[in-house]
């Protein structure tokens, strides 16, 4: 196994000349360069962890002839990543792990001149639901209690999130409008910082993906009140969804892989095949379950159609947010 050989060489600090003869048997397209695996978030966040997990699965099963090289481009709500990928000099070796800023950033920054329909669909690895969390010591145990508390605080209730226009702020804006809530929203630079300040009770509630709140939930510090998914989240069967409360609303963060605009058909087919294989591994399926993500498998055409509907629904949500 080439992996083992490489690592052993590194161990002996002589990792300079690993010889891994390539079996060039197929006529099909194969990467000839390391693959620029662009991540639309800084190191350490939820999106980054997912990308690195995907990379480690590919490495473990030795699925690619050239490595996936993670490249964090988190600046400007993903604008940096979109500019980098759409201007890639070698589109056949450039792929992007996206979240919903794939839809929102081009909408909010029209001057970037990014048309996401030019990107190449590769794979939808899953969608991440959102839930409303409070700290255990707040004494709030259900959504009713939350509503009472927020109304009683009269505009002084403090929620934290990752910034105006980001996924959680869209959910909070919807919730506030639907229930006539007035909350203070403090923007942070990442989901980790938000979770930390909820744990330290600097803020009173957050809307966050279960994966980022899981550790604190298991320790008993965080209490989920409401899920923003279509069905109840399996890990939290007692937590109602906002749909059950009569609101026609659900919101997910997409965890999808897309190719650079102008990618050749052969390359697109290669990556679609690669990520289908990764998706089907035991590791990825286990990861989906443990991180409370939902599968939402789609083929390339369905993905393009999905992008279209997402852009429209985000246009409406953002208009509400700004208005």
């Amino acid at each position, binding site marked *: 196994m*080439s992996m083992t050989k490489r690592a052993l060489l590194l161990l002996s600090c002589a990792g300079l000349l690993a*010889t891994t003869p390539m079996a060039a048997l197929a006529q099909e397209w194969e990467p000839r360069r390391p693959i*620029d695996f662009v991540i639309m978030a800084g190191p350490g966040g939820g999106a980054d962890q997912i990308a690195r997990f995907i990379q480690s699965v590919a490495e473990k099963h030795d699925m690619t*002839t050239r*490595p996936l*090289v993670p490249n964090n481009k988190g600046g400007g709500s993903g604008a940096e990543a979109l500019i980098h990928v759409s201007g890639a000099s070698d589109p056949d070796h450039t792929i992007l792990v996206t979240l919903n800023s794939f839809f929102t950033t081009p909408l909010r920054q029209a001057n970037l001149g990014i048309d996401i329909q030019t990107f190449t669909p590769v794979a939808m690895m899953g969608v991440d639901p959102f839930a409303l969390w409070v700290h255990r010591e707040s004494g709030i145990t259900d959504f009713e209690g939350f509503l009472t508390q927020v109304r009683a605080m009269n505009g002084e209730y403090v929620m934290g999130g990752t910034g105006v226009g980001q996924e959680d702020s869209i959910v909070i804006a919807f919730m506030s409008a639907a229930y006539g809530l007035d909350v203070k929203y403090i923007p942070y630079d990442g989901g980790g910082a938000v979770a930390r300040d909820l744990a330290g009770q600097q803020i009173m509630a957050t809307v966050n993906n279960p994966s980022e709140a899981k550790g604190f939930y298991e320790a008993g510090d965080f209490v989920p009140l409401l899920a923003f998914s279509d069905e109840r989240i399996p890990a939290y069967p007692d937590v109602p969804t906002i749909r059950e409360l009569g609101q026609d609303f659900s919101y997910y963060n997409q965890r999808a892989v897309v190719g650079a605009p102008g990618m050749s058909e052969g390359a697109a087919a290669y990556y679609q095949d690669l990520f289908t294989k990764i998706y089907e591994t035991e590791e990825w399926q286990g990861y989906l379950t443990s991180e409370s993500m939902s599968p939402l498998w789609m083929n390339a055409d369905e993905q393009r159609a999905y992008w279209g509907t997402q852009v429209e629904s985000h246009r409406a949500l953002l208009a509400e947010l700004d208005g």
Partner: protein
Amino acid sequence: MRYGEILTAGVLALFSIYLMVKSAELPIGFIRGQGPGGGAWPFWLSGIMLICCAMIALNWWRRTSPPSQSDEPFLDGHGWRTIGLVGGGLIGFIVLIEIISMYGAIAVFLFYYLWFLGRHSLRLSLILSLSTPLLFFFFFEGMMRITMPTGMSFTDPVFDFLYDIIY
């Protein structure tokens, strides 16, 4: 030097004004109940920069700062020549990265500096300027997995070969 001091202060003052104008695209005032707007921090800091430039100009006029007293030229002929040769070499280096790849550019730059500027022997210059990029390639691409620009497409066969070695 005295001339350079006031000229630089002037350019920096213009830059500060530009930054202030640019910051003012976002609210620069204090928004009631929210604190300062998005442009406030850079706007007022650029304002302080502008004031500093004015003070530097005042010191220049009063001749209190060392550069404003000095009559020696900002750079003498030899200085301009050195900076031109080295700085020009750097600019060439960066332009070459996009054409003949990072590693090719390193080789050319090192050879230029060692042989032409440093006046080392041809043998030493060649050895160093060819072995360094090769070593860098194996370190960055092989070990650290950091890909460097490969330049225009005519370099592809070389890199295809090198990547076949390390992966």
